[in-house]
C-alpha cells in the first residue's frame, strides 16, 4: 500500500500551477498484491504487432459489428488497422483498452472513440458530439472539425483537433490534455476538475465556467469568462510545456505561446475537500 504521506510533497505539476490541491484521499492508494498474476491482467486486451497492418471497410456494417471486428483483428495480432468508409456512423472505435494504431479514413458521428484506454488514433475527417468521452490514455488526432462535448470527462491521454470544436469542450474533464488548432465554442472547460486545454484560436462565452481546477490556455480572443474562471500568470515553465506539447501534437509548432492567456479556477466556488465519504465520517 502506498504511503499517503508521500503525496504531500509538491509535485512538478503543482509547481507549474497546473493544480494546487494536495491529494490525500483513498483514491490515491493502491490495493494489489504483486504475487497475484490476475492483478496484472487487463480485461479486453491483446498482444498486437504494430507492423501487422490491415484494412477494414465498415460501409455496410453497424457500429456494433465494426467494433467487434476491430476487437477480432486485435485478437489476431493486428496492431495497425485502417477503417474505410466510416461515413459519420456513431460510436465507432469505442472501448478499446489496448495499444493500437487506428486510422479512420473519413468522418465519425457521435461518441466516436469513447471510453478508450491506450490506442493511438488518427481520424482523417470530422467527428460529431462527445468524441473520446472518458478517454483514459492514448492519443486521438482529428484532422478536421469536431462537435460539442469534445473530450467530455477525459481522465488522461492527448486529444487533438486540428480544426474548430463546438460547445462544452472538456466538460467535466479530470485529466489529460485537449489541444484545439482552431476556435472553440461556449462553455469550454465547463466544470473541469483537472487537466489542460489549449486553444490556439478564439473561444466563446463562459470559458471555464465553474471549473474546480486545471488550466486553460487561449491564443485568441475570449468571448467571456465563466463563473470563477480567472487569469493567471503565464510562466516560463508553462511556455516550455506548451511548446513541447504543440510540437508533439503536430499542431501550431510555430505558434507564439508567449502571448497566450492562462485561465485557472478562482476557487471561490470551492465547497468540497479531498476526503472520501468514509474518511469524513472518521473525521467527525
Amino acid at each position, binding site marked *: 500500500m502506498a504511503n499517503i504521506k508521500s503525496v504531500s510533497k509538491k509535485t512538478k505539476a503543482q509547481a507549474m500551477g497546473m493544480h494546487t490541491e494536495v491529494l490525500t484521499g483513498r483514491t490515491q492508494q493502491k490495493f494489489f498484491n504483486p504475487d497475484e498474476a490476475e492483478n496484472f491482467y487487463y480485461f479486453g486486451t491483446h498482444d498486437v504487432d504494430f507492423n501487422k497492418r490491415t484494412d477494414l471497410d465498415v460501409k455496410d456494417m453497424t457500429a456494433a459489428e465494426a467494433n467487434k471486428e476491430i476487437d477480432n483483428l486485435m485478437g489476431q495480432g493486428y496492431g495497425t488497422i485502417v477503417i474505410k468508409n466510416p461515413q459519420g456512423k456513431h460510436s465507432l472505435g469505442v472501448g478499446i483498452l489496448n495499444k493500437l494504431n487506428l486510422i479512420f479514413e473519413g468522418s465519425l458521428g457521435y461518441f466516436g472513440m469513447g471510453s478508450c484506454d491506450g490506442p493511438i488514433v488518427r481520424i482523417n475527417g470530422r467527428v460529431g458530439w462527445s468524441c473520446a468521452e472518458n478517454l483514459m490514455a492514448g492519443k486521438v488526432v482529428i484532422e478536421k*472539425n469536431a462537435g460539442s462535448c469534445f473530450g467530455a470527462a477525459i481522465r488522461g491521454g492527448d486529444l487533438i483537433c486540428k480544426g474548430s470544436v463546438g460547445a462544452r469542450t472538456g466538460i467535466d474533464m479530470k485529466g489529460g490534455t485537449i489541444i484545439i488548432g482552431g476556435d472553440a465554442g*461556449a462553455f469550454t472547460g465547463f466544470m473541469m476538475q483537472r487537466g489542460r486545454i489549449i486553444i490556439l484560436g478564439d473561444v466563446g462565452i463562459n470559458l471555464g465556467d465553474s471549473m474546480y481546477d486545471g488550466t486553460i490556455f487561449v491564443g485568441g480572443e475570449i468571448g467571456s469568462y465563466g463563473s470563477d474562471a480567472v487569469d493567471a500568470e503565464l510562466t516560463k515553465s508553462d511556455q516550455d510545456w506548451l511548446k513541447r506539447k504543440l510540437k508533439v501534437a503536430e499542431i501550431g509548432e510555430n505558434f507564439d505561446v508567449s502571448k497566450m492567456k492562462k485561465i485557472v479556477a478562482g476557487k471561490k466556488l470551492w465547497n468540497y475537500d479531498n476526503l472520501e465519504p468514509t474518511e469524513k465520517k472518521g473525521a467527525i
Partner: protein
Amino acid sequence: MCGIAGLIHRGKSSKVGHELQGMLQALKHRGEDSTGYALYGDTDGKNFIMRFKVGENVGEGSTSVAEDVSVYDERKKIVDGYLNEMGAKIIKEERILPYSLRYEIEYNKKDLLEFSQKIESIPGVEILSMGKSLEVIKDLGNAKMVCDRYNLDKLVGTHAIGHARMATESGVDIKSAHPFWGYPFSDVSVVHNGQLTNYWNNRRALENKGMRFMSECDSELIAVYLAEKMRDGASLEEGMKESLTGLDGVFTYFVATKDSLGMAKDTMAAKPLVLYESDDLVAMGSEEIAIRSILPQEIDTYDPFDGEVKVWQI
C-alpha cells in the same frame, strides 16, 4: 429529442423530396412519432398552393378524436363554399388522404390573414401551408412512411426543411407535428429541435397582438414569433437574431422562405447541428449521417457556434 434536416440548392433545382426523405430517414432514431416536410417546389408562381387538413390522424396523447369520413366530406364542402365566397378559384384539387387535401388556388389578394381566419373558423380545419412554392406535408410515422403516403419522392424544387419528431411537449397528431407555417405569411415555414421555456408568456403576448396558435407545441412559437417580427417590418434575419434573446430555452431551428433558408442556434449551443456548405449546396442536420445520406463522399462539415444565425439564398 427530435431531428431536423434542411438543404438548399443554389442556382438549380433537384429532387428535394427524395433528398429530404433520405436525410430524415437517417435521423429516424431521433423520433418517428411524426415526420414533416416543407418543400419549396418549382412552380410558375401564379397560383397559391394550399395544403390543409379537415381531420386528424390521431396517435398517443392526442386530445383529438378519430372521426368518420363523412365529417371530413362535410368540412370540405364548407371550405369550398368559403373559398367561393372570398373569390378564390380552385384550379386543381387533390384529396391525398381522406383528411388531407391539396388545392391550387387562384387568389389575388395579398393579405392572407382574413383568408386564413375564415377557413380555419371551420372546426377541425387547419391550413398546413399557404404559398406559391411552399408545401407543408406532415403526418404520423417515419420519413419513408410519410413520403410514400404522400408521394413526395418526385417533387422537384430548390430547397426544403423537415423534422422527425419524438413527441415530448404535446400529443402525437398532425397539428403538433412540424414544420409550422409562418402564418399568415405565404411561403414561410419553421422546424425546431429543443424546448422553449417561455412559451406561455410569449404566447399570451402574441395572442394579445392578434397572432394565432393552432397547437400547444412549443415549437409553433418560433413560427409565430418570427411572423410577428416580420409583420412589424423586420427582415427574416433580423427576426431570427432577435429570437436568440426573445426565446428562452434550448433550440436549434431552421426557417425557410420562398427563396431562402436560415438556421439559428441558441446561446447555450445545447442542441446539435452539423452543417455542410459549398457554392451550390447547403445541407444541414442534427447529425452528420443525415448529410451523408445525400453526400456519401468525404466532405468538410462543421458545427455552427452558439448564438449563430445564418441565412442562405437560392
